[in-house]
């Protein structure tokens, strides 16, 4: 681990804005009157001026998946004799640095990789190209809230999974932990060796942050036995509104829908809790009730994905709990199933 002066690091970030390009958390809440000043809406955004970048925030409202799986992508296509010719020019494969993602979001990228990356059965070339060209510089999390449960999901607020480098806010400096070659190329030459003493202090800090996380989720649970329990799934989904907040804000949800609009094909996010998600052209809807849809969401995350890819499709970022309009708590639902 290396240690670097904060202003030196921020100076470097300023250079990234023009080249290669920087994406970082920004408060985009606009205020019409002074009373609204406390409103915050923190999202990842392409940075234009250095003053926009935030370092003090819990987590962004929307996860970082937007940049790899955009909410909607428009493809032009031409009809050829041998089929359709899609124009994928949307991705130019420009290098970008994403700064400030939390370890939970970084972990979610490793889960998305299993589905869309180069070696995957369902390779998505746009996704793979963007992944290759992006450097992920994470920011360790020191103030988790009551909805966070990353420690139950096999990671910690200081994890490096999925990251190219991790930055830790340490007193008046930043401690840099370079993980991959990409990270080393970008940050390897910076700062001076932190030494064993600081390494120890960082470990202690990590443990103390971990202790702040009180919520747990029993991920080893076998959900199979609860599948048929009409009573349980009705009870937990009774208040569900069938809106898309949980799926759209989830860093690891990746379902999408395709539709054709005047010679363009639109690929946009879709969520399994929506009423019409499973609707087929015959008119049959195998998941017509919210009980079935909500159960599917939980099972996909904690059973089907685990069976196929060996890990749960959840990183414990807590967004679905924090932003659920009726406060449905997925960790509780799994624990009590």
């Amino acid at each position, binding site marked *: 681990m290396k240690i670097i002066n904060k202003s030196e690091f921020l100076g470097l970030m300023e250079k990234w804005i023009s080249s290669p390009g920087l994406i970082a958390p920004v408060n985009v809440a606009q205020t019409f009157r002074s009373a609204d000043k406390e409103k915050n809406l923190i999202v990842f955004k392409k940075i234009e001026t250095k003053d926009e970048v935030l370092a003090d925030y819990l987590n962004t409202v*929307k996860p970082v998946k937007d940049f790899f799986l955009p909410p909607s992508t428009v493809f032009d296509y031409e009809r050829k004799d041998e089929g359709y010719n899609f124009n994928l020019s949307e991705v130019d494969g420009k290098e970008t640095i994403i700064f400030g993602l939390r370890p939970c979001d970084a972990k979610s990228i490793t889960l998305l990789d299993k589905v869309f990356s180069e070696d995957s059965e369902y390779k998505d070339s746009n996704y793979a190209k963007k992944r290759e060209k992006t450097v992920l510089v994470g920011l360790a999390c020191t103030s988790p809230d009551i909805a966070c449960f990353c420690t139950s999901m096999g990671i910690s607020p200081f994890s490096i999974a999925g990251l190219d480098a991790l930055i830790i806010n340490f007193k008046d400096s930043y401690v840099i932990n370079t993980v991959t070659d990409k990270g080393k190329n970008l940050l390897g030459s910076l700062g001076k060796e932190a030494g064993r003493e600081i390494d120890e202090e960082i470990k202690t800090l990590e443990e103390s942050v971990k202790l702040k996380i009180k919520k747990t989720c029993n991920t080893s649970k076998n959900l199979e036995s609860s599948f048929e329990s009409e009573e349980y799934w009705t009870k937990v989904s009774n208040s569900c509104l069938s*809106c*898309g*907040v949980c799926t759209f804000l989830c860093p690891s949800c990746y379902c999408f829908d395709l539709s054709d609009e005047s010679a363009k094909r639109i690929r946009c*996010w879709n969520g399994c809790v929506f009423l019409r998600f499973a609707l087929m052209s015959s008119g049959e809807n195998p998941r017509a009730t919210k009980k079935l849809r909500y159960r599917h969401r939980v099972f996909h995350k904690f059973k089907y994905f685990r069976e196929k890819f060996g890990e749960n499709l959840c990183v414990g970022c807590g967004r679905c709990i924090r932003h659920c309009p009726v406060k449905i708590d997925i960790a509780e639902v799994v624990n009590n199933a």
Partner: protein
Amino acid sequence: MIKKLQEEVKKLLAEKKVNMVIGYARAGDAINAIPYFIANPEECGALIWDKTCIYNLTNYLIDMRNKKVGIIVKGCDVRSVVCLIQENQIKKENVIVIGLQCAGVFDKKGAELGAVGRERAAKCKSCNVHTPPLFDILIEDKEMNQKVLQQEDSYKEIREIENKSPEERFDYWKKELSKCIKCYACRQVCPLCYCPVCVADQTMPQWFSRSLSLEGNFAWNTVRAFHLAGRCIDCGECERVCPMGIPLRKINKKLEKEVKELFGHESGVDAEKKPLFSTFSKDDPEEFIK
């Protein structure tokens, strides 16, 4: 007050006057409230009532329209019950309205943090309906008079926007609506958005683009606002649930103001009255209607 509420609900369920009562209970985090559905009279002890009970529960009535249901409402929420009766979506005889006297609830963040200075949601600051105008059972709050704070001008923010130039307003809404992620939480939480297939979900023909373009976002949010003109009862749920913090209440409030000034109509006040758009008056300002 909570005791009285629990007793009344218990009585309703024990006497089998209703199959289910929809109320509020405490969430697992011991801070927030959650919507709570009770069928068993023994579970009534879990019912709560305080400033964290921010939800408008009448949204669930549509799903249960053929059942006998008891519903716990505040002064604002009950107006959507009135609207649903007016619009023939529910039958009055199927619903037992349990009204609560309310001096205001927390805003969204306040409910989570219990923070000082967050005591009243924006909608509560301009509210003067502390006792529900329609109820079968009223749970009175004896300290009501001390609790009610001064009412603020409900159209203050609307006038502020009206006074801006069209360019400034357009700019403002462009920035706000570009945040929309089309999660449709606003529609799903709205007690008056009950179309079996929403116009935004129709694919044959497809009326709106599915993509997150600014045009598509404008189309969705304006169509929804117009569908609610003269109907919205200002429960503020759409704005509360919007994860992107779009001030949706301002759009609905503007239409509410227009409807009030043009037709003298207030939504959700009188169940005997017809809905605004299924009636006409000889004094209508428009020529074509005469």
